[in-house]
């Protein structure tokens, strides 16, 4: 069956390519997103991992050993206010340099869009109403006792405080939950990242930057000595992560 479809597709494609060999014959463009990372402007790849070489705004020296995070619901808003929403997600894993580039599954019409955005993490619908085999297989889940669903980010490494012994930290972002009472009390911590208006005239690559230092900086100066581990059930820490996350992403450039 699949083979047949492929066959049909090939025929359709070759027919199309006969009549017009430009990419956007239907005024459609392929869209992809590259995820790049920096520490206050200095670019980071996984070859920068495992050595203590970064300083956060609280003055702690730290390393990164693992970084993976989830983005979902890439959305293009037309000038008429119509939203093209991609109900898909991408788990970026800088540790193994996987999914650093992500192509939208379909093309979008060329034109000017008022806004391009994605969701950091999962909104509640995606978080609780889906069981995702690929995410489960890489142990991305949140325990049921914290409401279930999925992690939004795992940033791990070591830090030192005035050259004392190295201590591990696990900066794990999830939906904030207070599990100290009889029932769980939640606060949403996923957020929309907006990149503003863009004109799509051809196939387009969005280069997205994450400034990892921002997670430790603004508005909450992060004190790793106090907040380094067991942060998942720490409601207040999750709220602070949410606040600090607001400025970590930026659109570095657009390639067309």
């Amino acid at each position, binding site marked *: 069956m699949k083979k047949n479809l492929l066959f049909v597709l090939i025929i359709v494609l070759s027919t199309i390519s006969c009549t017009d060999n430009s990419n956007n014959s239907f005024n459609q463009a392929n869209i992809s997103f590259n995820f790049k990372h920096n520490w206050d402007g200095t670019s980071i790849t996984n070859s920068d991992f*495992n050595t203590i070489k970064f300083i956060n705004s609280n003055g702690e020296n730290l390393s990164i050993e*693992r970084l993976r995070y989830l983005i979902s619901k890439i959305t293009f808003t037309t000038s008429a206010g119509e939203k093209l929403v991609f109900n898909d997600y991408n788990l970026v894993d800088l540790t193994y340099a996987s999914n650093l580039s992500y192509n939208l599954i379909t093309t979008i019409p060329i034109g000017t869009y008022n806004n391009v955005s994605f969701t950091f993490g999962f909104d509640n619908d995606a978080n609780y109403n889906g069981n995702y085999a690929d995410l489960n297989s890489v*142990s991305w889940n949140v325990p*049921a006792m914290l409401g279930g669903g999925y992690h939004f980010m795992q940033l791990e490494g070591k830090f030192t405080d005035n050259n004392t*012994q190295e201590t591990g930290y696990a900066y794990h972002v999830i939906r904030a939950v207070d599990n100290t009472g009889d029932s769980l009390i939640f606060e949403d911590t996923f957020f929309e990242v907006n990149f503003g208006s863009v004109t799509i005239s051809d196939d387009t690559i969005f280069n997205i930057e994450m400034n990892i230092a921002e997670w430790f900086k603004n508005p909450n100066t992060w004190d790793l000595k106090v907040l380094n581990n067991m*942060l998942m*059930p720490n409601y207040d820490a999750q709220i602070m992560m949410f606040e600090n996350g607001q400025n970590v992403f930026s659109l570095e450039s657009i390639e067309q």
Partner: protein
Amino acid sequence: MKKLAIHILLIIFIILSCSNEDVQQYAPTPSLLKIPELFENNILKPVIPSDNQQTVEGIELGKKLFFDPILSGDKTLACADCHAPENAFTDSSRFSEGIDGSLGKRNSMPLFNLAWNYDENFFWDGGTFSLEHQAFIPVSDPTEMKNSWKQLQQELQKHPEYPNLFQKAFGTSKIDSTLVTKAIAQFERTLISANSKFDKYLLGEVILTPEEVDGFNIFMEETKGDCFHCHGSDKNPLWTDNIFHNNGLDETFTDLGLGTITGDPADNGKFKSPSLRNLIFTAPYMHDGRFTTIDEVINHYSEGLKNSSTIDPLMKKVAQGGVGLSIQEKSNLKAFLLALSDYDFIGNPDFIND
């Protein structure tokens, strides 16, 4: 025009297939892996290489080879001697003896759910890629079967049964090392364990004791055991992430683990997280079999952690020795771990030598 071409093609195909009829292309019988319900519901499909599909005849041949000491240099040692069904396909010694009594430096590994090791990195240090490649190694390893592939091929070729079995499995009676490893890998992929008490609990078929429930909570709670980040969960019923970590066994390393393979000092002392299924059958524990009981393992995580530069950040509270569980918590955690024992797996007649 195009239509005509397709018609002509079709006719050619038909003619070809007609004239082929008397040649009778032999094909072994496909045998799909039986994917357990919990796996089907929660995790990705198993990895089966396109050039080594599972077949009834291939699996049968692989099983025979797995249990046959003909694979070893002096015909005394089978895969199954270090990977015994009653031990969930590992053995009970700390280091296994090769044919001449020499000891390896690592604990044998249990074999199950191997087709779900998505990255296909096998061994404690991930040093071989894919099951097919893995099976090449023990045969000629001097501390294990100490055979030569050339000699083994000859022995199998003049054996009264094997040429016929290879004929049935692969359509050729000409035996070579590639086909031997393919057959063994097919058998290994059938070793599926997914029928423990905890699996049945997740499927709603049984209930757990309060101790087991509490133990599972300790396993999942970040402020308690916090085991789930590396060892799976109700949503990842493999009970491993198949990733390499330093879980705080040593301050200095005699075995570099993943570091031997990558050459990166940041990987020193990292080993693959083992699955926590079937622990009751698989003692001793860790890559060097240093712990003889599950209690010792739990004590390690609770208060025995050793710091080193590559220790995993998730091994928190190293300074205090570990997560510090109470006696009751330790005992409940153990009760939960034991609920991952799959007695049907070790008793499965398909997996036992007949």
